[in-house]
């Protein structure tokens, strides 16, 4: 135990040292201290903690991370790795906003993007609430660690009734030099009533070294707004990526989230949604593709607090080599949330004898008039489909690859923005091509 504590403290230090918020108001200092305290109490999670049963961060504790240096701005955006969409770009390098490459001005009417330190200084309500909300760090050690040492980020505000056609694109770049770095981006998104917008996040890496990105994003979607939220996690293969997204939805909101995860050595994508209104359509979906030495975790929590809302969740994964996938999904239906309609599904294909998948789909229901179901499947490709393709003269090898691609691409149907679906489709195809090369090399 003493050893773990020392590691925890080292991490805390690495993050705190990064904090660039000189002269921030007192409440901010208090929030930071609360984050540090919560993290110290909880410690770095291991699989003894139920919420981290399948994903231990023990390995993280043994690495010594440094705070990123300030001159990372020369880093090129690795265009091959990010989602290929022509969006309104915001660039973060090692958790800090690169203002020179970020669209902070001349934005479409109704859209405002403010660097986080400024938003804190201006005492922005949404930011203040996000940083002071105990619920956002309670029992969540990594979110608390983020609060303890925020490295940077932005506030995105979409005004009431505004329709922003162009996707907003946050590109978060991690760079690994001689020493692994640790950083904690914090972004706050506020979507006003009846507004519409799309946010795409690309988390990518430059270089071969290790780094640790521990991000937290707050999304508040006001009544009757529509918000599409997509994420590409394509970090460097030796990086650690832990991301928490807190979503709160008002009345009649449409929120849909899709995460494509293929990068990092260990990644956890956690989305906690509170459906605090009626007639909400809430969707969290994703695809995960793990290869050698990769561990990809998708954890979701959906809380139905009011009646008549619908939640949908479909994740699909492929695990190759000794890749490991984890899916944990929980739907909580509170007593007042009658007529809730919840559905949750995780499907996984193991492509190798060394791969592993662990799923834990969970329902916790306190209202009696609800329709909730969940499912999980682990399995092989459909024999009938395979045979059908072979009967048409396609080799077993090609037939398998075709079916795997079809299986993954099918999930993209859930994405509501065509450009994003295309960009993610390209990534899936590229991943499969890489896999085919590996197979060829092995045979």
């Amino acid at each position, binding site marked *: 135990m003493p050893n773990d504590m020392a590691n925890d403290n080292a991490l805390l230090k690495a993050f705190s040292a990064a904090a660039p918020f000189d002269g921030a108001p007192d409440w901010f200092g208090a929030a930071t201290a609360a984050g540090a305290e919560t993290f110290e109490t909880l410690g770095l999670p291991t699989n003894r903690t*139920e919420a981290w049963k399948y994903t231990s961060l023990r390995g993280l504790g043994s690495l010594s991370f440094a705070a990123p240096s300030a001159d990372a701005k020369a880093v090129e955006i690795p265009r091959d790795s990010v989602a290929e969409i022509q969006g309104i770009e915001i660039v973060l390098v090692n958790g800090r906003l690169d203002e020179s490459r970020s669209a902070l001005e001349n934005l479409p009417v109704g859209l405002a993007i403010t660097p986080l330190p400024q938003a804190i200084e201006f005492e922005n309500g949404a930011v203040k609430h996000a940083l002071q909300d105990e619920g956002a760090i309670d029992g969540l050690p990594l979110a608390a660690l983020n609060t303890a040492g925020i490295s940077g980020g932005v506030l995105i505000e979409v005004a009431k009734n505004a329709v922003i056609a162009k996707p907003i694109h946050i590109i978060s770049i991690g760079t690994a030099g001689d020493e692994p770095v640790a950083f904690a981006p914090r972004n706050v998104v506020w979507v006003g009533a009846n507004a519409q917008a799309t946010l795409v996040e690309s988390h990518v890496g430059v270089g071969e070294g290790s780094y640790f990105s521990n991000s937290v994003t707050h999304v508040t979607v006001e009544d009757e707004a529509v918000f599409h939220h997509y994420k590409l996690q394509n970090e460097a293969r030796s990086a650690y990526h832990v991301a928490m997204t807190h979503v709160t939805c008002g009345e009649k909101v449409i929120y849909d989230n899709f995460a494509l995860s293929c990068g990092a050595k260990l990644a956890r994508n956690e989305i906690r949604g509170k459906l605090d209104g009626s007639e909400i359509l809430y969707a969290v979906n994703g695809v995960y593709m793990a290869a050698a030495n990769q561990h990809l975790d998708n954890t979701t929590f959906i809380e139905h607090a009011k009646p008549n809302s619908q939640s949908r969740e479909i994740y699909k994964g492929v695990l190759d080599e000794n890749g490991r996938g984890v899916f944990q999904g929980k739907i909580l239906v509170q*007593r007042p949330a*009658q007529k809730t309609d919840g559905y949750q599904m995780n499907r*996984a*294909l*193991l*492509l*190798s*004898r*060394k*791969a*592993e*998948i*662990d*799923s*834990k*789909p*969970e*329902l*916790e*229901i*306190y*209202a*009696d*008039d*609800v*329709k*909730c*179901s*969940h*499912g*999980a*499947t*682990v*399995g*092989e490709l459909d024999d009938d489909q395979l045979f059908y393709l072979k009967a048409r003269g396609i080799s077993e090898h090609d037939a398998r690859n075709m079916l795997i691609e079809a299986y993954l691409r099918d999930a993209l149907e859930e994405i509501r923005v065509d450009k994003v679906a295309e960009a993610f489709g390209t990534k899936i195809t590229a991943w499969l091509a890489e896999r085919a090369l590996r197979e060829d090399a092995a045979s």
Partner: protein
Amino acid sequence: MAATVETIEQVEQLGTEKYKYGFVTDIESEMAPKGLSEEVIRFISAKKEEPEWMLEWRLKAYEHFKTMEEPDWAKVEYTPIDLSDIYYYAAPKVKEKLNSLDEVDPELLRTYEKLGIPLKEQEILAGVVAVDAVFDSVSVATTYRKKLAEYGVIFCSISEAIKEHPELVKKYLGSVVPYSDNYFATLNCAVFTDGSFVYIPKGVRCPMELSTYFRINAENTGQFERTLIIAEEGSYVSYLEGCTAPQRDENQLHAAVVELVAMKEAEIKYSTVQNWYPGDETGAGGIYNFVTKRGACRGDSSKISWTQVETGSAVTWKYPSCILQGDNSVGEFYSVAITNNAQQADTGTKMVHIGKNTKSTIISKGISAGKADNTYRGLVKVLPGAEGARNYTQCDSLLIGDQCGAHTVPYIESRNPSARIEHEATTSKISEDQLFYCAQRGLSEEDSVSIIVNGFCKEVMKELPMEFAVEAQKLIGISLEGSVG
């Protein structure tokens, strides 16, 4: 058809029945001193005239137990158990060793008659069920032993087995649930007082259903029974277990361990109808049912099937499991768990696929009413060598009223690419439409609920042996009384 028809008759009597097993038998008991200590364990072992190796095993478990902490991961809340306030041994006082049933205290025989379990063989229905009756800590009678012996089947209390078949007990006791397994199982290893022992020799199909009837009578006693069933190559046995306890205001602990071993091509079917006293409407009293049940499919093509209907107990914490070691072995778990008023149940199964082409099926039906919480918790684990493993899981929850909770927590872990695992879960309620439809056909509200819930549980109920199905269906109605309207 016959079973369902009979059920309806039984269901009709529901109106008049509450927990009818809540009486106390006035019988003199012999007890160990209250509390848990090495002395108490030595006392139990001495009382049972156990060999030295048995005592040593108990003490080893006790030493280990002292290092353990009570688990808290289940979704149940209860007043902590004060282990020092329990009698670990309570036995009806007998003057000397019994030679036949005629010498059993008539008060005891009357108790079992009241429970509907006749111990006099001539009264038992055409000899289809042999019964081992466990009263508080000890086995009071085992019927039909002679007839079973003709087939080479051993059916006796575990105490007798320790003395008379030490080689079998030594070989298998703790081989499925080791003494260090978990808090309550380890406690059981140290202090178990009695239970049933079954041995089915190679190639024998046990000619009758074997049954144990557990009864907690004395106050402040814990019941720690231990059951061991061994089915040798190519054999078959169907085993039934029933439980009741008197109505008392304080909680009583029941921490049993059941171990099943199925060798090549053997099959064990284990059915439970659990009706321990659930406590009153406010949650006062009732049994804590913390049980470890596990079966090992050791041989190829062996099969273990658990069927349980859980209606009683204040708190239930049990996960009958199958370790599928043999190639082509099969594990099944069929469960109905009903919680009403303040009852809590956290129950499910573990299916561990080790051998090739192993198959498991899990059908769980949870019904929650009143202010009760009902959780399904299950693990399906496929190890790398389990080529071609298959699992199908279906968990359905039914909520009656808006003060209760239904939860599903499956863990699905696979490490073999050729394995196929399917898990489905649904939650629903009894709809107003269904209730109105039944009422329009003349059914009272309670009959309607009973018939709808029995329909919901049908896939599990059909797995129960006939003798138990009727009782179980009746119980479902009783336990849901007052849950609607």
